[in-house]
């Protein structure tokens, strides 16, 4: 087991950032620490890296007790949200830094730097300064720099948070492929559930300084441990006090299914290939429910504002309910 965290707690003044956290992060996997801002995920990552000291508890990295080891002795690669590029050094010098500190022979450093710059597609920028690179390039440089020391674990703190949407998406796919090549145990912090679901082998959901759930993306999405995890991983809507995914509600224009709920479409919003319908239940409470259908389904059923419909939830908080329609 690669990283073992036992009973870790951390306070900043009165604010409890982490409260008795226990977690085991397996070797060779890509793990996401997912949660809202201020939930403690970055603090946990910084404690693993040794950039922050835990008030209580212990951290073990690959069997080495690391709780009181200073950052430079942990052999951990750390990538910051804002790159932390060494501004006065060229790209190649940035990547070589960890190796030069370790007093590796010049030829070996040169070879390793070239190899890594190739890996992150920055070979032709070796002699530039970080200020001459784009954000995405700077972050790739920071990754190469962290990988140069052949770290036991690679830690990334919101690595794509400062980048625009398109570059973010590219880098995300690239990180996944890179990890499949390099296989270093990787932990990254994100508040973006899509990023976590797409990239990670395992997701740790952290909120209010506590771990809410640990599991694979499918486990978390299909069987969330509680309402928080369910609502954090994707859109939800509530019927009779139970959370449902908007795309897990059947919507038809004719009655007949036992237990289906009569309602009326009050708004429709088209976003790309999907249509988000706001539906009002025709009961005393007039609850508003979100239902998402595909554009094709909307067309074939003739769903539009103002018409009456019948709703049947197919999932309830992860548990598949009886689906009378058999879909």
């Amino acid at each position: 087991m690669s990283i073992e965290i036992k009973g870790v707690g951390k306070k900043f003044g009165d604010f409890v950032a982490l409260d008795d956290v226990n977690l085991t992060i397996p070797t060779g996997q890509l793990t996401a620490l997912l949660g809202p801002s201020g939930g403690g995920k970055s603090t946990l990552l910084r404690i693993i890296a040794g950039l922050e000291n835990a008030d209580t508890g212990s951290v073990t990295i690959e069997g080495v007790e690391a709780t009181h080891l200073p950052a430079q002795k942990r052999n951990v690669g750390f990538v910051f949200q804002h790159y932390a590029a060494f501004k006065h050094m060229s790209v190649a010098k940035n990547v070589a830094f960890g190796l030069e500190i370790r007093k590796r022979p010049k030829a070996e450093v040169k070879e390793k730097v070239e190899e890594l710059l190739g890996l992150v597609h920055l070979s032709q920028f070796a002699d530039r300064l970080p200020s001459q690179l784009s954000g995405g390039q700077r972050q790739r440089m920071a990754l190469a720099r962290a990988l140069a020391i052949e770290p036991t674990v690679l830690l990334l703190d919101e690595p794509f948070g400062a980048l625009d949407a398109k570059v973010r998406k590219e880098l995300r796919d690239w990180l996944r492929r890179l990890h499949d090549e390099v296989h270093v145990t990787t932990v990254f912090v994100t508040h973006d559930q899509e990023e976590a679901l797409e990239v990670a082998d395992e997701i740790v959901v952290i909120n209010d300084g506590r771990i809410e759930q640990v599991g694979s993306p499918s486990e978390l999405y299909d069987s969330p441990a509680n309402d928080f995890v369910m609502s954090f991983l994707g859109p939800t809507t509530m019927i009779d006090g139970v959370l449902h995914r908007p795309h897990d509600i059947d919507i038809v224009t004719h009655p007949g299914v036992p237990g289906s709920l009569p309602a009326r479409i009050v708004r429709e919003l088209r976003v790309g290939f999907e249509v988000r319908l706001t539906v009002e239940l025709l009961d005393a409470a007039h609850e508003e429910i979100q239902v998402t259908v595909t554009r094709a389904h909307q067309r074939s059923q003739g769903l539009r504002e103002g018409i009456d419909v019948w709703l049947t939830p197919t999932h309830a908080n992860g548990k598949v309910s009886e689906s009378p329609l058999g879909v």
Partner: protein
Amino acid sequence: MVRTSPLLRWVLRLVVVAYLVLLIGWPVSMVVTHTFDHGFSALDKALADPNVTHALWLTAQVTAISVLINTVFGVTISILLVRYEFPGKRLLSALLDVPLSISPVVVGLSLLLVYNPRNGWFGQGLSDAGYQIIFATPGIVMATTFVALPLVIREVVPVLEEIGDEQEWAARSLGASPVQTLRRITLPAIKWAIVYGVVLALARSLGEFGAVSVVSGKIVGSTQTATLVVEERYQNFDQPTAYAVAFLLAFASVVCIAIVAILRPKQEGKS
């Protein structure tokens, strides 16, 4: 961009230029023209006077030592102020402005009170041990260091704050010790701030007069610094020498500032 009429722009320029000429340009240029009234004779005469050369040499020594002290302590205190939390930090930060806000004469008097050999707090003990502070070079160095103390710090602190500590943490996580991090990351990043601070401290130290005039005792050929020579010669009707020494002081400062302006990297300030 705010649109301004060409006329207003010209008026504003004229006001600024007139202000600078009347306040700085003209008076300083008068020193230069007076120095060279009779070619190089005033400079030659001044530099042939052993008391003058002694004073210039003393000023150079004092400036070198006090700039060195202020640079080392200035950088250390700046890092302490920006990177660490400790009780009394705000008080220390406020105290560092004292040398800028109080008159150098007061600085001189306060040093006199503490270090004078007859009834000073420290002075008696040090005097008994054979160390003379007041009316000697150590006192002049202390007074000069005191007045120039905040200059390096005020240059370095904002730059340290701006660069943040992430680069330092990145270096640490890559295996650098605190000393390696300081040498390879922090110092190169604040290099230009230190250079500006040193130049300001240098100029300030060269020109220090008030505090030095109190603690030095103004002993001609012994504790008389260059600025004190200017005053003494001017009052004793040896004005050519006074102008010549004043010119040398001004010239040294201008040269320092010019060198920095030339060396300063073009893209400095870009992130």
